[in-house]
């Protein structure tokens, strides 16, 4: 008899995904992180040394610090707005009894994702720009003298990002909310909780894992977005991905681009861990000892 294998044969099925992750994430990230602390390209120049000058340059230049702050702010505001807009929609979707209605709403949530990000961003430009639908209507009616600054700023960037990423929030939340037993809210109501109180006491805390997952997804997508901030911000809003692209494509300074990427990743990870921690604390907090 052969000795029983310690590894389940199913486990080998994750091998392709693992290999993909290794080749196209860990290796590039390692190379990028390595470049960011080297004085030059080791392939071209054999006598490179370790250096912290790329990080010094970033920390010493307010342009990069401000754009990091702006990136994180856009990410946080986009996540918060997507959560506030997406939660009621996800709740509605998860609790819908009619199968037809459920399918229609699901289609409505997913359909925008079938259109490219560039196309959707240009749609927002036609709505929000100085001569776009909103401003043209309001000034045409004489309600405004000058157009409202709806884009080429963080507001326009956030509006477009929320629109693009809210389906990720809705789908993640709907999955979690759909698994919460509706009888729990009924039990809470039978014990004297108003429908709103029952939601706050039962469904909301039980959907925290979905809030966490959806927020992380949207935050990660929003801080790494390039096309939308580029088009909606109109060079007035500089986010870190735009500066990284500039370093790679225009300046060819791969080491400095690597340093910017490492800092963005590190700061995001710290924020994500902190967010996770706070939500965990909220979930464990109880009103009764």
């Amino acid at each position, binding site marked *: 008899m052969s000795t029983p294998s310690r590894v389940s044969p199913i486990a080998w099925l994750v091998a392709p995904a693992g290999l993909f992750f290794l080749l196209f994430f860990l290796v590039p990230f390692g190379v990028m992180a390595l470049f960011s602390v080297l004085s030059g390209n080791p392939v071209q120049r054999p006598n490179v040394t370790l250096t912290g000058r790329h990080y010094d340059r970033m920390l010493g230049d307010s342009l990069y610090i401000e754009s990091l702050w702006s990136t994180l702010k856009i990410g946080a505001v986009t996540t918060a707005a997507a959560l506030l807009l997406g939660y009621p929609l996800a709740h509605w979707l998860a609790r819908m009894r009619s199968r037809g209605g459920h399918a229609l709403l699901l289609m409505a949530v997913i359909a925008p994702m079938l259109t490219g990000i560039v196309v959707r961003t240009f749609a927002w430009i036609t709505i929000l720009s100085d001569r776009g639908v909103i401003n043209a209507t309001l000034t045409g009616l004489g309600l405004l003298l000058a157009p409202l600054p709806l884009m080429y700023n963080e507001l326009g960037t956030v509006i477009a990002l929320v629109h693009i990423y809210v389906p990720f929030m809705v789908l993640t939340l709907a999955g979690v909310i759909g698994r919460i037993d509706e009888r729990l809210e*009924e039990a809470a109501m039978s014990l*004297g909780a108003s429908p709103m109180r029952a939601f706050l*006491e039962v469904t909301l805390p039980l959907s925290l894992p979905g809030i966490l997952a959806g927020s992380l997804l949207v935050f990660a997508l929003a801080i790494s977005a390039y096309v939308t901030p580029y088009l909606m911000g109109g060079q007035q809003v500089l986010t870190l991905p735009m500066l990284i692209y500039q370093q790679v494509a225009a300046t060819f300074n791969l080491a400095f681009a690597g340093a910017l990427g490492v800092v963005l990743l590190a700061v995001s990870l710290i924020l994500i861990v902190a967010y996770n921690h706070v939500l965990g604390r909220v979930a464990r907090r109880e009103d009764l000892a």
Partner: protein
Amino acid sequence: MPPPLPTASPASITLERVTKRFPGGVVAVDKIDLIVEPGEFFSLLGPSGCGKTTTLRMIAGFEAADEGRVVVGGRDLTHVPVHHRDMGMVFQSYALFPHRTVAENVAFGLRMRGVARPEMAARVASALAQVKLEGYEARRPAELSGGQQQRVALARAIVIRPPVLLCDEPLGALDRKLRQAMQVELKELQRALGVTLVFVTHDQEEALAMSDRIGVMNSGRLEQVGAPADIYDRPRTRFVAEFIGEINLIEGRVHDGGFIAADGRVLPVSSEKGEGAAALALRPEKLRIVSSGAGVIDGVLSDASFLGDQVLYTVTLADGRRLLVKERNPGTGALRQNGSTLGVRWEPRDAVILRNA
């Protein structure tokens, strides 16, 4: 505003022509009239889809009645929302809050009512003691067995001292032994609290064992309301007769104060008024096997099933119909022989006549 603390005194429940229609035109509950007395243990019994759970959910306020009134303790609750009805509810799935401990689950209703902490702690402790769950305060529902979860659900419902306790198949998920133990406990608890209890079940044995009165439901209507013995011994409709226990039905008609079977044979019944098509209903344990020719009908014994305390015999009549006969286990180990010809008889007072609707 949290609702005020309810008093512990049991309330009556009155349903007046209560009707519930679901989208698509299905009438789930059809003009039900029912009065449940204060302190009564009342079971709604019926097959799945008969409307018993919908009726309970209308009393609780989870479903709005399309017609009729729901009056509890003299107060018309028809348009009062769930959270102002002050009723304890135990769900089939228990519906315990998975993110809260046992103590927090039980305290929930008290917290909603703004009960002060010392009183809350005392009442949670006494409710948990009542369901014999001391020492489990800090556990989470997922760490408890099904029976223990059931007890937490019960404690959570009774801690608010509701005048009415509603139970939706609360023992359905438990295994047989535990279910029987919980039946006794629930009955004792109900007596001790003096609460009016409405119990929904599809299990006729459970309903017979626990209830003061039973309402048998079928297709959204109450077929019969009465004490367990009443329902069992004197069923008023074929549905009730067949749904509860085993029964032999012999088709025929009532004529001249007696009963004539379809084959023309006159069968013994206590005197019956009126005329018309009917069925004669006989419980298997009311039939007796006698020697051939000495009974009302002769037949051939075609099957014997040993049930432990009793033996169930199947007697096949000349026209192919079968009668079930239950006899006490004689304890001699000897069962009657298949294939033997014998007679079956019964006392006229044990025969129930069911009129065709």
